[in-house]
């Protein structure tokens, strides 16, 4: 892999820098329907049902859920250290944006095309939301 294909530009929503393992979600995320003590998704019919999002770089299409529960879900996960390390979203809505900023969880959108083809579950990423950059540092299994 060339250096170039490891680096993806993105747009900062909530600032911060972190690194961690990637987890893709096909479905939208409602943080309230994630168990705060384990980070496990408890929403039936969800593609991540039974899986933990704790300390992952979570990639998902959009937020779902009411104007209240998103912030509270995130807050409780954060208090238990079971929240995502950073989030990469396709369609950001106000609730998701405001919650991430207030809870200080890095969030970006508008990621370079090619990200979804190149990056797979379990890869290790460095997310620098502040400067709008995502780096693929290690391929997973």
């Amino acid at each position, binding site marked *: 892999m060339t250096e170039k294909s490891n680096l993806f530009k993105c*747009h*900062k*929503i*909530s*600032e911060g820098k972190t690194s961690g393992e990637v987890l893709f979600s096909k479905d*939208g995320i409602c943080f*309230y*329907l994630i168990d705060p003590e384990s980070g496990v998704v*408890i*929403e039936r019919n969800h593609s991540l049902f039974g899986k933990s999002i704790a300390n992952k770089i979570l990639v998902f299409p*959009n*937020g*779902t*859920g*009411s*104007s*209240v*529960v*998103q*912030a*509270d879900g*995130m*807050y*409780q996960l954060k*208090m238990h250290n079971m929240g995502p390390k950073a989030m990469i979203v396709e*369609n*950001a*809505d*106000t*609730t998701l*944006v*405001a*919650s991430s*900023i*207030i*809870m200080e969880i890095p969030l970006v959108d508008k990621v370079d095309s090619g990200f979804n083809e190149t990056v797979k579950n379990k890869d290790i990423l460095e997310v620098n939301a502040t400067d709008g950059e995502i780096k693929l540092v290690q391929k997973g299994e």
Partner: protein
Amino acid sequence: MVKLSLTEQQMLNGDFGKGTQTAMKIQVAIAEAFDAPYMVPISRAHVALSNQEADLWFVEKLVSQGAKCRIRPTVNPSFNWDQMGQITNLSSEDLNIVKRTDDAYKKIGALMTYDCTPYLQLNVPKVDDIISYSESSATPFVNSVYGAKTNRESAQSALCAAVTGVVPYYGYLMKENRKGEILVNVLAKMDSDFDFQLLGYVLPLKIGFKIPVFNFVNKKEKNNFSNASLMNLGAQMNTSGNVAIYHILGYTPEANTLEDAFQSNSIPEEIDITQEDLDSVRDKISAPIGKIDFALFGCPHLTFEQIQKVTKIIEGKKLAVPLFIMSSDPTMRLCEQMGILKIIEDAGGNIISNTCMDQPCWKFLYGKKGVTDSPKCAYYTKRRSMEFVITDLENATYSALEGEVTSDRKKQFV
């Protein structure tokens, strides 16, 4: 970079105190996330107070920094500790948090309306008003039915707007972002408010979060929609999805004609929704019919008209299981004044004001099975180990009389 007025810049600098500064900082970050060019003043706000940890943490933080609302917002329900205290034993921990929340919101200058349907009574905007409304069922109502302009604010972002009196200019505040994206031909007859619950729930699963323009092809009265039906439609679209505005062809203010609704001569996409589509979603989200332990209505808060429907069915009879109707305080007082509250209480039911189903005061129902007319109610209580059969309000009321949900079909009554 968002361009701020002199006053807004002073808020950001801290000239108006730390609380206002915090609120403005968050709003500037939101503005930048959405590339908003500047801020605009708001005339109204509604904050989805939730009495949950994050809610209390944030409002107390602003209060401790001396924030005061420039636009006094109405607020969502928590729970009515006086009324619920007579029904169940409230833990001192839950009482403590609900009173702390009450105290903090009073200090910041909120109007303690404790109602999730403020747009029907105490906080009614006009067409083109720029406002900041959180509460996922309130946002679509004020945008769609009244033609006021708000983004789908979170409780916290709306509170920040109430404090600063401005919002970033982006999203649904701009006309071009409010245009319809798909024509939804509803072939089902839609003769009950419950059909609107199901339509609202199924639509985002079918089309994603596009702005729908509804064409109610087979509805008998095309210019008569109950408040409950419109409220249900918006509430459920924001349970299974995230839809801040919808249009109804020939009815809502931005959809006089197809051209109005789509802001164009062409219709980008079209879909048909049938009765089968509505029925299939109910089967998916409802618990199986059978014996029930309680009935819980009012997510969102029942309107006076809905309470009247329930009352007609239970008048002079005895309920087999406890019935709790959540509504606004003004509606409850109206029911009391008109003798409706007494009829409900004589049957063994209650109207509870200022209360939401997603609150710890309902612990005595955990592990039990209830009946409700609201998919939203059933969705959020997954966190609270309550199980619900979902059916229309009339059938749910009959079920409360019998202690059992026996049929999905709506029963005929005089």
